[in-house]
């Protein structure tokens, strides 16, 4: 029962990824700017532009360029002809003239930073958000509930950049509680890593925890009104078991969905947070690419971010079926 469902979903996912890659490619490569002209700086001559155009295959029709691009991702590609060729091995996402590097290298370097940021913030906000939500639901209508809901509504309404900037200004500039953000790999310098990541984690966690507190609360309250909860109580289960085993599990599905998609969305780059705290992650890479009009890098970062979300969609749907026995796999 489970297996055919997964196969079908994987098939749909591959189809969606294909469409997605086409849209991404058209979006950024059919723009009214000449990508070849963007490959060299101020000391540009028409000859260099023409040569680069041929080297990068930009003289080919768009459809050929797309096929080459996709081919590069799976089997690698060779740029240029004759003696001036260079190899870009799979997965090749293109060559960034602005950075003088293969886009794959840029992404591979940026990805861990974004991953640490996303996962750390995720753990923090799930812990805080869900506990707040459960506490509010347990004390439904009392002052605890009202306090938690007001706090989370404010947290939910604050703009991301505001939270980030405020933390930066007060904790670092004013009170010198932490050194200025300077990203170091956790394997090289764990102390500096934690000092840099703490504020970004808190920034993201504040916003998401507020949302998850509200989501958890409304889910719990909804399931607490269901008939099977009354049944569970009627057969004499303790309130604790009813709450943990019945209500929480049934109310968990939408939380899992949101959590999976939010985490995936963040893995594609937390643009504003990375920008504020100068973290060299995917979001910063993408913003830099947009400002420089570095088309191969923009295309690749958007594609990578979108792939995360699509794959997360699949994982979430499968988890759904595993968590909630009521989900029918039809």
């Amino acid at each position: 029962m489970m297996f055919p469902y997964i196969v079908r979903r994987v098939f749909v996912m591959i189809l969606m990824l294909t469409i997605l890659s086409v849209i991404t490619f058209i979006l950024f490569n059919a723009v009214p700017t000449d990508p070849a002209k963007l490959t060299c700086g101020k000391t540009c001559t028409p000859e260099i532009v023409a040569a680069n155009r041929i080297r990068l295959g930009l003289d080919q029709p768009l459809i050929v360029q797309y096929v080459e691009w996709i081919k590069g991702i799976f089997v690698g590609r060779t740029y240029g002809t004759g003696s001036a060729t260079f190899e870009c091995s799979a997965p090749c996402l293109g060559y960034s003239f602005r950075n003088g590097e293969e886009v794959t290298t840029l992404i591979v370097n940026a990805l861990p930073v974004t991953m640490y940021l996303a996962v750390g913030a995720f753990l923090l906000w799930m812990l805080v958000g869900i506990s707040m939500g459960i506490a509010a639901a347990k004390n439904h209508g009392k002052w605890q509930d009202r306090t938690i809901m007001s706090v989370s509504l404010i947290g939910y309404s604050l703009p991301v950049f505001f939270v980030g900037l405020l933390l930066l200004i007060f904790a670092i500039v004013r009170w010198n509680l932490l050194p200025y953000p300077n990203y170091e790999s956790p394997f090289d310098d764990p102390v500096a890593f934690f000092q840099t990541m703490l504020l970004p984690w808190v920034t993201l966690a504040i916003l998401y925890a507020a949302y998850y507190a509200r989501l958890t609360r409304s889910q719990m309250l909804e399931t607490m009104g269901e008939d099977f909860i009354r049944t569970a109580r009627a057969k004499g289960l303790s309130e604790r078991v009813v709450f943990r085993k019945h209500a929480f599990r049934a109310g968990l599905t939408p939380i899992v969905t949101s959590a999976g998609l939010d985490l995936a969305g963040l893995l594609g780059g937390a643009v504003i947070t990375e920008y504020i705290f100068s973290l060299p992650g995917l979001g910063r890479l993408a913003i830099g690419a947009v400002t420089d009009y570095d088309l191969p890098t923009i295309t690749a970062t958007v594609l990578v971010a979108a792939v995360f979300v699509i794959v997360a969609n699949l994982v979430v749907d499968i988890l759904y079926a595993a968590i909630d026995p009521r989900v029918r796999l039809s």
Partner: protein
Amino acid sequence: MSIAKATKNDVVVGRTLRQLAWARLRKDRVAMSSMFVLGLIVLIAIFGPLISKWLGVNPYDFNTDLLSDAGSLPLGPFGGVSRDHPLGVEPLTGRDILARLLYGSRISLFIALSATFVTVFVGTVVGIIAGYSRGRTDIVLSRFMDITLAFPLLLVIIAMTPVIEQRLQSLGLPAGNPSRITTLILVLSVFGWPYLARLIRGQVLSLREREFVEAAVSIGSSKRRILFRELLPNLWAPILVYATIAMPALIGAEAALAYLGISVVPPTPTWGSMLEESVGYFTVDPFYFFVPLSMLLAAVLSFNLLGDALRDALDPKADRN
């Protein structure tokens, strides 16, 4: 007498969801106060130029005589608050902050409102069509929603803004703010509609099995009539709630984009651009930063609170009193 009174009071009067919701909202103090705040903000936005004229303040005039010689910071308490400039003046330029806030509210609200309108329109139409038509149309539209939602919103917006603006200008829209604001509205709308479309689709899936749709089909109503005359009136509750929640999100998105450098063409102010400009002065002139921030937060919080209250008030499962 007492019996007559009792029977009179006990007469069961059918109330529509609209009447019920309104009755619930009027009892909800939070909802009423957020509506009041929002009403004020909207009035401020509409009459902004008139109020500025009446107070004798202007958003574009430089008042460098009110700034210190060293550092160009406003003289006087709270960033140069005085009778002529009730909320102080900007550092560096000395422009009146109140006037900029009044003018900025117009643009911020206009962008958010237009984007909400486009989002709601597209989302509703696509959602109704996807929900009512079975089979291929539904699958194609639904997958299209999924794909749109998979894109990293902020990145695509930032990357696409210059491109779309160029396109609009080549279509004949004047350069500068007309095309910039249209671009902002478009990019902000493009990614919001799938959420509503999904919601509406789900609702229509169950509505289309109801008797009134069957009745409409049996008397030979056109598909268009069924979609927009029969189904649409049953969907206003989720649409209204969605629109109320979309507004604050879009106001926040405008501010976030402004922070990343995508905003209206200066010197035109918005809440977002004012925040972006004032952030750098936060340590020396915090009042300058808190003025647009409190306006933005008041609007966003009120919309969120109202959205919450509306969702509760429009809940058909709630007690009917």
